[in-house]
């Protein structure tokens, strides 16, 4: 069985794993905006208002700073930046668990549209997403992993009407534009549907992660506009999922970073037994071990972003590695954060729970670590028994 087994793909020869000056400038802009308008306490208050996302914050982030158009080429109305810059935005959004549809709209929906070619049907919705005027989502369940064609729950009739139900779509209630992968009469296809159109219903569910709302979408003869068919449709969806999964690692890094920093801060200040609890070695070692995991998650997330940005053939490996690694790190960091805060970590007022909920739901999003490990096994020639 060893003959003909594929060998691990070559890693990109000289990946740049650091941050450029431009990326740091972008980070500073996003961070200061989030510090003003997206502090965890504000997030908490906004969540209780019942709005699906913080529209004021979204407008400032997407339109004023222009992050929504990072992945869109300039000639199509965007900023022509790359996955590296979008990753930096996601790190900051993870660090503040801001309830904005950045990952779903500016990353996944944008990438799906970009994969549909540059026909006229694509340019207008892309420009609207890039400008932050419209929120768009790809109508697939949040746990859908890249790499394997998803089971399509929506059927398209020859006249372009759609029927079916897609569950647990992230940011569905915020979206005006739904990109719907559907089983057409001659294979897979991707349709654009207005969320407000007749025959579309969005039922919100109560999500574990309040900062990333979920909705079930029901299509009952809704009219769709065909964007792509066949291999092109399939490839566009897969690239969107791959990009989403790869950049989700940066969000997870941001979540973990905040959790570690807050835990260090708290334990250095909180006194028990006459000394700061952070001077107890049992706690120090846990935080030091976490620091190492966070530092490692940063390298993994940066490599995934760089591989996506340079369209490296190693991108599927880079994304699988980053997803298999970063999800569990974020969860552990959030769990340690709650534990090492003691009683206050269990309260609703303290923001730790927002990070725990985000971390746990991120771990399932776009493929669980186990799914990504399995995908990796096939990619690098470590076959199942």
């Amino acid at each position, binding site marked *: *069985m*060893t003959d003909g*087994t594929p060998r*691990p793909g*070559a*890693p990109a020869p000289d*990946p*740049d*794993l*650091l*941050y*450029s*000056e431009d*990326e*740091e400038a972008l980070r500073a802009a996003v961070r200061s905006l989030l510090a003003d308008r997206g502090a965890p306490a504000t997030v908490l208050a906004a969540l209780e208002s019942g709005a699906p996302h913080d529209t004021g914050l979204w407008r400032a982030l997407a339109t004023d700073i222009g992050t929504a158009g990072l992945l869109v080429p300039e000639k199509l109305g965007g900023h022509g930046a790359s996955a590296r810059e979008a990753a930096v935005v996601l790190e900051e959004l993870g660090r503040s668990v801001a309830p904005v549809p950045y990952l779903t709209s500016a990353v996944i929906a944008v990438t799906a549209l970009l994969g549909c070619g540059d026909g006229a049907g694509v340019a207008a919705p892309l420009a609207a997403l890039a400008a932050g005027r419209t929120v768009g989502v790809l109508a697939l369940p949040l746990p859908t992993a890249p790499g394997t064609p998803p089971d399509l729950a929506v059927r398209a009739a020859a006249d372009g009407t759609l029927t079916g139900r897609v569950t647990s779509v992230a940011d569905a209630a915020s979206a005006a534009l739904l990109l719907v992968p559907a089983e057409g009469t001659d294979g897979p296809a991707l349709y654009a549907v207005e969320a407000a159109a007749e025959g579309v219903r969005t039922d919100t569910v109560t999500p574990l992660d309040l900062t990333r709302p979920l909705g079930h979408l029901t299509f009952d003869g809704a009219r769709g506009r065909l964007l792509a068919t066949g291999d092109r449709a399939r490839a566009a969806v897969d690239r969107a999922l791959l990009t989403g999964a790869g950049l989700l690692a940066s969000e997870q890094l941001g979540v973990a970073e905040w959790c570690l920093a807050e835990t*260090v801060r708290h*334990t*250095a200040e909180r006194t028990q037994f006459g*000394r*700061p609890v*952070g*001077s107890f*070695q049992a706690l*120090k*070692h846990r*935080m*030091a*071990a976490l*620091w*190492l995991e966070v*530092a*490692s*998650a*940063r*390298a*993994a997330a*940066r*490599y995934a972003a760089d591989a996506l940005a340079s369209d490296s053939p190693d991108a599927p490996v880079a994304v699988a*590695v980053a997803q*298999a*690694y970063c999800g569990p790190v974020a969860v552990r960091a959030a769990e340690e954060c709650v534990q090492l805060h003691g009683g206050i970590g269990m309260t609703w007022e303290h923001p730790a729970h927002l990070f725990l909920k985000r971390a746990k739901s991120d771990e399932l999003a776009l493929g669980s670590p*186990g799914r990504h*490990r*399995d995908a*990796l*096994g096939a990619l*690098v*020639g*470590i076959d*199942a*028994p």
Partner: protein
Amino acid sequence: MTDAADLRRRTAALLTAHPPATTGRLDFLRARFDAGLAWVHFPEGLGGLDAPRSLQSVVDAELTAAGAPDNDPGRIGIGLGMAAPTILRFGSEEQKQRWLRPLWTGEEVWCQLFSEPGAGSDLAALATRAVRDAEGARSDAEGGGDRVVEGGRDQGVEGGGGWVVDGQKVWTSSAHLARWAILIARTDPSVPKHRGISYFVCDMTDPGVEVRPLRQITGEAEFNEVFLTGVRIPDAHRLGEVGEGWKVAQTTLMNERVAIGGSRIPREGGMIGVAAEDWRARPALRTHDLHQRLLTLWVEAEVARLTGERLRQQLSPTLNSVRAGGAPTGQPGPEGSGMKLAFARLAQEISGWEVEFLAEDGLTYDDWTMRRPDGVDFTGREAGYRYLRAKGNSIEGGTSEVLLNIVAERVLGLPPEPRTDKDVAWKDLPR
């Protein structure tokens, strides 16, 4: 600044002047050192070109492709990883000139006389004494009167009075092969422990140095006990000021942590590569549980590789990192401890996985013969050896517990442990 193209040109010139096919190994290595292509980030005249550390890989790749001999870094790891950066930082010009070239070419092997039976993790508690030599041993140009000098070999660095050293060191890797040792000893017992230490270079061929093999868990004697009895060390072999040895030792220790586990490896390099090959070669032994665990380890090994790569990029002023405010070429910081922690854990987990995967073959061992090996061979021997030797990775060069303390206090800034020994003279410490 020297760039990759310049280095390629210089490497080509070296290969033309000294074709590997017709040049002796040592001659080639010496010529390479003199061309500044040994460790390019070292200063000119000392085997380097003041170039960014990251560019070493350019030279290495060209030389490997040309079939040039290497300097056997596995065998001379202590010299390369620990002695050299310390000599570079604290040595006099004469010391650098005397020691660095034969160190790099492997003509002279180095060892590290730090640990003692009573001072391991608490290294600053060491008891080996160095007292001023009343007779001024070897301060004269002819060197120690009672020692036999091998034909033509010089002594080291001369002059400046001397010291007499007495004590015992332990777990000294490669002491049986070493020509020189970096040594820390107590020169003032009346001040707190960190302040009364000085740092020396000890000639392992001197009278009074006795090396006894210490057999270890793997069956072989890779490390030793070293007894120092009236060993005379010239003052010119001191690195750093008298009483400042702890500061000098910090440089050694920081570099040690990077040297262990900090080397640049390709994807699936090292132990994970061996484990993956085992998996591919033995389909009959596969189980679902072992598959899941191997993939988890594969991911962790790849992430550790990327983390090391990122750390290197931060330490090397490539164009990108300088633009991003990266540190110039320099000494590794406490972050290096993180790499060693990850390396030790992975080496242990992967080798443990491998023994388990091999089933019946995992129950056998290749060779228990007592030997005194030249170095550690992590991929050349069987899984059982790897499993046992890897246990040392979380002990040597600072235990994982101690490294976690370092990360917690110096990287994360967590409050220090309360201490009872800080302001007490070493001689008054409870023992």
